[in-house]
């Protein structure tokens, strides 16, 4: 996406004002601002202003209950507190573990995309089947998973006990397993989306490459490794980066499935931020977390912009 955004940005013709046509240019300017103004105004009020306010608040100890007169400037105190906040550090670590979701999803969806693209009948039907979790409400889906993973009544553990496991894991109720269950749900939700994008990428690989490989006697597996994978690298890279950013934004899955528990084992940065701001009512401290989140996401985006040239085969 960044690549395509970049090309969009560079394709904007720079406007040159010629004195002769200045009246016409003036009207053109006016029309441009008029058309863009609803969007720009909305973005300014609801996004740009809040982000500036976030920076300001992150240096204060302010909370919702106290009025603006109680704002106290703390300098970098919030940030030094963050470094020693064990729950926040745990949530940061959990975010790092959550990243494993992305390569897992990529592998499964690539295999599915290749198989569905060429090797099966009813292509359209399979596309819908794998895409349905992505369009479903996370809340509804998470409640189903809660039930499926229920330690005693859940179908998963009932099956395991039926197969002779006397003490199956307690899944969402067990701090050692809960994060893996969350990851499983995230993989399941994202497979369809990744698969659709991979399929679009597959369409853009020239067919004659495979024909030539066929003539040379290369096996399907060899073709997959030496044609499909390298030529899909721009798609893979895009999905990898946007997927990683996506794991940092995963709020509803955590909120509905586990509420960050048990014992903070599934707490992540965005959920900790929400708890700090809206449950513990520490707006200033939460804003410091927001700034950390922002920096993390911007870093990943920067890696994307620069990494694209190095690691991607066109």
């Amino acid at each position, binding site marked *: 996406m960044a690549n395509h955004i970049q090309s969009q940005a560079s394709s*904007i013709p*720079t*406007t040159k004002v010629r004195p002769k046509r200045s009246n016409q240019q003036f009207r053109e300017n006016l029309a441009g601002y008029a058309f863009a103004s609803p969007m720009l105004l909305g973005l300014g009020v609801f*996004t740009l202003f809040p982000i500036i306010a976030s920076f300001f608040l992150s240096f204060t100890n302010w909370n919702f209950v106290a009025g603006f007169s109680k704002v106290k400037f703390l300098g970098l105190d919030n940030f030094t507190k963050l470094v020693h906040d064990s729950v926040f550090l745990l949530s940061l670590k959990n975010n790092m573990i959550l990243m494993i979701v992305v390569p897992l999803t990529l592998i499964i969806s690539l295999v599915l995309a290749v198989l569905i693209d060429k090797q099966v009948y009813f292509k359209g039907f399979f596309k819908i089947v794998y895409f*349905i979790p992505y369009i479903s409400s996370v809340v509804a889906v998470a409640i189903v998973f809660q039930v499926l993973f229920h330690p005693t009544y859940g179908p998963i553990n009932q099956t395991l006990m039926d197969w002779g496991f006397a003490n199956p894991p307690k899944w969402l109720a067990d701090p050692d397993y809960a994060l893996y269950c969350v990851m499983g749900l995230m993989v399941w939700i994202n497979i369809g989306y990744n698969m659709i*994008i991979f399929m679009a990428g597959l369409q853009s690989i020239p067919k004659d490459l495979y024909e030539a490989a066929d003539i040379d006697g290369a096996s399907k597996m060899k073709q997959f490794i030496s044609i499909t994978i390298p030529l899909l690298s721009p798609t893979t890279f895009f999905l990898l980066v946007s997927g990683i950013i996506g794991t940092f934004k995963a709020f509803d899955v955590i909120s509905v499935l586990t509420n960050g528990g048990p014992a903070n084992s599934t707490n992540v940065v965005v959920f900790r931020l929400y708890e700090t701001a809206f449950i513990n009512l520490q707006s200033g401290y939460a804003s410091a977390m927001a700034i950390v989140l922002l920096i993390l996401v911007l870093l990943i985006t920067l890696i994307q912009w620069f990494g694209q040239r190095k690691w991607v085969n066109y």
Partner: protein
Amino acid sequence: MNKNKSLKKILLTIVMALFGILFMSPFIWMISASMKPEADVFLFPIQWVPKHWHMVENYKTVWTTKFPLYYWNSIKVSVITTALSVLFSSMAAYAFSKIKFRGSAVIFIIVLIIYMIPSQAILVPQFLLLRWMGLYDTHVGLILLGSFSVLGTFMLRQFYLGIHDEYMESARIDGAGHARIFWTICTPLVRPAIATYAILRFIWTWNDYQNPLIFLRTKTLYTLPLGIHSFADLNGEFYSLIMAASVSAILPLLIIFIIGQKQVIEGISMGGVKG
């Protein structure tokens, strides 16, 4: 050789179908549970097809709670958000693609940077802002937060860029201004893209949990995701009812998706669109 190939294809189709069923099993379980009496929900081995049907009663019970209200709230918020978002996005997209105004390049880059800000990083100030504007705990506030989408602007801009300027030139010679060119010439040409974006925006708004959770407090204003969650908290023991509510919430999206699937899938594959 050819026969061998199609046999292989049939076999793979069967394997994929089995995997597909496994993949869909949470949904199948959801639908099946929504049609059973509560006592049968956790019976083992799982009764995929209910032995005792309780469908009418379950759905009737769900639909006589606050559920229709949540449904109506979701329809209202999603439809208005989608309409506004499409309008604002297409206007901005037209400005950034077809009007050569001063500063457009710089403004567009600022918009790009805004796009990278994760929504959770600005929740606190947004909350303060909405409270200050008197829009906290209102649908208007929720709708406004969802109506300004950079993503929609990018997506539609690509399509407006694809329109040849000759179309516009002839209209301009006839004396049409930008408003008329936008409305009667360009927008009809990008209608498929607008439909794609509208469907996606509708699905995302319908499923949104985070914003309603933070910006709504009054129960009668809840949208479906929040409604189902509070419903599940209240009826923790009645999974058949929770599943009936979940199925009811997902159903309209499923219908919209199946009708517009070509457009949704094309839209998503076009540039990696993500809410």
